[in-house]
């Protein structure tokens, strides 16, 4: 049987536990069963994913909701075809036993992941306590902010529970303190998404459906077999990774899907509306479109 090659561009340059479904799915043959040969490629920087998707260099992408919004504001022909996770687990992490409130942030130094969504949410949280960006000092590190936190070079870092949070647990053996953004004005909408090039989508609806079917199946299987999932990852990326970290990350990720049935990837129109409204309110960018322009559920399995 001839397989259709599908280029799947990732959100950032380095593999991590989020990718487990398609890694394990490829190994188990879930994609080839659907006639797809999945080529997983990484971008130079987090910003380049949408360039590859928009120009059709890649057909599908693992990305963030925010990147889709930014890309569409630049008229890139991309659209979300599925969500990855349900809610917003982004927030501010600090060392174990050093729990911070929003008001405590005044005058503190924060290690941040340098993207637009981080800045936007940070502003939302700060305004909840009547603060602004002027009241804190931010440090953007290209790779990782966690070592800075552990070495007490910064007082706190921004991040999500199943990445930065996982790191803190793996290194120190204890969970860090977490200040969730959703409790302080940020919208509780999914961070990650699967996206596709719209031109390709129009011409290859069946392949798109096949891709999402296989992915849905992979998520369900990976959630049910975490040990196998971590093994598949370790096999592909050898010892460049700390297996303990990957395992922890996947375990931290599974609950975020909510369900792992056919509805796992379903886009919720309300989520998108909330997001667009928040972006408009905080003037994060110009050129916002109606919420329904950002996603489609047409290619999801029934």
């Amino acid at each position, binding site marked *: 049987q001839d397989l259709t090659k599908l280029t799947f561009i990732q959100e950032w340059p380095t593999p991590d536990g989020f990718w487990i479904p398609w890694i394990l799915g490829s190994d188990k043959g879930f994609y080839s069963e659907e006639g797809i040969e999945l080529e997983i490629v990484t971008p130079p*920087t*987090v*910003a*380049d994913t*949408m*360039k590859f998707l*928009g*120009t059709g260099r890649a057909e599908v992408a693992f990305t963030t909701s925010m*990147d889709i919004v*930014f*890309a569409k*504001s*630049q*008229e*890139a022909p991309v659209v979300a075809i599925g969500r990855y996770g349900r809610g917003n687990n982004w927030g501010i992490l600090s060392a174990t036993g050093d729990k911070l409130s929003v008001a405590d942030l005044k005058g503190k*130094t924060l290690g941040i992941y*340098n*993207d*637009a969504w981080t800045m936007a949410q940070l502003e939302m949280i700060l305004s909840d306590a009547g603060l602004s960006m002027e009241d804190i*000092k*931010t*440090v*953007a*590190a*290209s*790779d*990782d902010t966690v*070592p*800075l936190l552990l*070495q007490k*070079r910064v007082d706190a870092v921004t991040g999500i529970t199943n990445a930065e949070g996982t790191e803190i647990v793996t290194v120190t053996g204890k969970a860090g303190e977490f200040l969730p953004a959703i409790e302080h004005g940020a919208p509780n909408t999914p961070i990650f998404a699967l996206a596709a090039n719209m031109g390709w989508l129009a011409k290859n609806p069946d392949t798109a459906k096949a891709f999402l079917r296989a992915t849905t199946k992979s998520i369900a299987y990976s959630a049910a077999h975490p040990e196998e999932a971590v093994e598949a990852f370790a096999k592909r990326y050898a010892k460049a990774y700390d297996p303990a970290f990957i395992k922890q990350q996947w375990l931290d990720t599974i609950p975020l899907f909510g369900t792992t049935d056919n509805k796992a990837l379903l886009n919720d129109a309300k989520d998108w509306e909330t997001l667009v409204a928040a972006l408009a309110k905080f003037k994060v*960018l110009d050129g916002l479109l109606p919420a329904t322009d950002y996603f489609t559920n047409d290619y999801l399995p029934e």
Partner: protein
Amino acid sequence: MQPEKQPLWRSVLYPVIAFILVIGIWWGAVEFYQVPRYVMPSPADVWAHILDDYRTLWIGFQVTFKEFLIGFVLGAVSGFVMAVLMDTSKTVRGVLYPILIVSQAIPIIAISAALTIWLGFGLAPKLVIVALVVFFPVVVNVLDGLRSVDGDLLRLARSMGGTRWSIFRHVKMPATLTPLFSALKLSATFSVTGAVIAEWSASTSGGIGAYLMQANSRLNTSGTFAAIAYLALLGLVAFVLVILVEYLLTPWRNKPMVPRWSTRFWRK
């Protein structure tokens, strides 16, 4: 890479033609291939962005320029000192040379995190990163310069009763200026890249490198290319600066006489 002796109109005209050529090809390509804006903007987009955000860009330019300048001088000076150190003994040279060569293969980004942890978020780690870019070429060239001083000249200086220090000061050191500057010219623009990488590593600065990264993360290609344009400008400034300093420090290469303002000028 000594710039050619040429009439002034040429040394202005040629870069202008070069500039027009680059802009023209860029614009033509963007129009002809219908390159989408989120991949590559047209020169007009970039120009509009620069006009729109010139204040931030200008501040960024100054920040990055400062990082470049201090780091560059630091790297040049420490490279020079290292070369002098290595010139003193065969053993020192033999041991340090392999370390230097191999160290070049280590990507700076891989050690920038450790640098930040040791040195904090201030200027220090950025200066070190810029300095590292200049360091190696300077060591190699200055060492070559020191070792190529004519043995007869050294013998003559000794026969005149020169001490080790005075011979170094007056005979060997000035002989390293030409190779030193050729190393500096080769690494001037490249160390601007060093400053950018440094800003990415741990950025509290509002430099052009940080601007580039932020614009890039928002798919704001006009912003990205505006930053690149400023970096190109910074590279040009860096290069011209090195040439200028060389011109001032090595008057004997361009002039038949010592300049009148020099303390070495003899008035009857």
